[in-house]
């Protein structure tokens, strides 16, 4: 099966005054539909920087990135925010450690939020179907402040799935959850990968990493 996402020689350099930090240093990476990949490594090793580039949230300093056969970054100029958004819309769903739900919107409104800006052609996900699938239908009319951490992360997952993305990116998805809730989220991500979605996650959680098809360890910006 062809790679749905492929990166070669990715470099990300940050400048702190006169100091140059190579957060990502020549990383090659690829993943396929239905594959669950865990990126692990110590804090400050460049995991999140790599995930942000893979998810087109950030421009690399060098290297190439191909999504669904289309070259996104390839030594050309930096892409504008609008151009990056156009690439992200049909391809990526994001889950964050801190959930980042909109506090004034109910669960169902939070889930429907991406469709206010973009409706993927043929996106099969109905908010209520997703809520049922993730076991939080009874919380549809609740505000995020009325939910537990596990429920909030399920809502965040449901929101990421609303436009049927091809790739799901998760940055420490169980970082704020207890063991039981973390296990539930792990199972959900595993099911999504089994359903054909490419899942790439950054994690410190060994259980979650164990559930992945592939584990990549990053140290000092390089793949070990």
């Amino acid at each position: 099966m062809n790679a749905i996402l492929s990166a070669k020689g990715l470099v990300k350099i940050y400048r702190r005054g006169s100091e140059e930090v190579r957060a990502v240093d020549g990383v090659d990476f690829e993943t396929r539909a239905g594959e669950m990949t865990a990126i692990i490594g110590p804090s400050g090793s460049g995991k999140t920087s790599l995930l942000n580039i893979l998810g087109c949230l950030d421009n690399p300093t060098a290297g190439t990135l191909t999504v669904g056969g289309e070259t996104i970054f390839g030594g050309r100029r930096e892409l504008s925010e609008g151009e990056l958004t156009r690439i992200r819309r049909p391809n990526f769903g994001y889950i964050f450690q801190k959930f980042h739900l909109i506090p004034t919107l109910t669960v169902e409104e939070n889930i429907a939020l991406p469709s206010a800006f973009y409706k993927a052609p043929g996106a099969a996900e109905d908010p209520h179907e997703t809520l049922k699938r993730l076991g939080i239908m009874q919380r549809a009319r609740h505000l995020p402040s009325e939910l537990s951490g596990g429920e909030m992360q399920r809502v965040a997952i449901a929101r990421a799935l609303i436009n049927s993305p091809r790739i799901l990116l998760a940055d420490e998805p169980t970082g704020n959850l207890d063991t039981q809730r973390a296990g539930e989220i792990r199972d959900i991500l595993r099911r999504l990968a089994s359903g054909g979605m490419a899942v790439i996650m950054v994690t410190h959680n060994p259980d979650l990493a164990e559930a992945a098809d592939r584990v990549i360890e990053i140290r000092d910006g390089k793949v070990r």
Partner: protein
Amino acid sequence: MTIYSIAYKNLLRKKTRTALTAAGIALSAWVLATLLGFNRGYENGLNRDIDNMGFQVLLTAKGCPYEAATLMLKGGTGLRYMEEKMIRTVSSDPEVEAVTPMLMQGVFDPNKGESGAISAYLGVDALTFPRMKSYLEFKQGGWFRDNTAYEAVLGYEAAELEQREIGDKLLIPGLEAELLVVGILKRSGTQDDGTIFLPITAVQKIFSKTGKLTGLGIKVKKGTDMAAFENKLYDLPDVQVVSMAQVKTTIMSLVSSAKVIVFAIAFIAVIIAMAGVINTILMSVMERYGEIGILKSMGAMPLDVFRLIWTETAVLCSLGGLAGIGLSLLTARAAEAAVRHFLPFTPNGDLIAVDARIAALAFGFIFAGGLLSGLYPAWRAARVRPLEAIRGEGD
């Protein structure tokens, strides 16, 4: 889920701040609509008062034209007299359709009010005056029989003040003259409501002013060149020509300087409201920096974010603008009473006329100003980079 519902919910997030900003906008909309309404109402009222005089030019004995204009609009007259023969002189002009002579006189009535007041009587011609004032309708009775009759016609308010009805006697204090009330006018909304009309010859006799007039109302034929006609009248000896157009211009110029100041205040109120909008929306953008980043990561284009923030501004300005215009309609009568209290001369009728056009104009101005204020916050929000915003919130 639409951008509009998101914007609406965002505004409800900080209810007090939203309400205070909307109140600021409402205040400026209220000031603006009221002032525009006053501008319209005052001009309409003045035009109506002048049209209701029934004549386009007033001839008075030579004196101060401002005094003559003011006294005339107040239902009074100049202090000097001209000869009755002026009627024939003016009537002989082929451009004159009709003339009506007037003699205004006043006496001190010690029984009026707490410490006495002047009672004024307007002597008018029984034949020509009713024709010129054809809009006057009677509640009871009618005009006097002839110019020598000791009869009186009371305006609606004058009748209420004097507490007279048809058949009652009216005594002129100090002159021992007794008049029979033969007619009471319906309310006309003009200065005629407060006037006591008497036959002109009777007034001349009672006040010993035989052959004297204080004013001569002139109605000209249609299509007459008013400027040329007035110039002809200036050639007459010892008369002052007061055209209604002049009166209007004079009064409007007197109030225009006051209007400039008031409009400046309205403009400042609008600017303050706009600054409030910028502050509120910008603060709201800063507080939601991380959220805006999340929206962008979920597929919101910079233009979507711009529209979202601009929609919030538009909703805020619409609510404030509508509330302000509603307030201006509700408080129009109270504001009118205040204006009448402070201005030396105000025409009759509605002084503050906030109609649909003025409401739309004020709303449009406030709305456009609000949208202009929302440009900078919306632009700032549109430029948010999702990664930096999410990191910022995470930190």
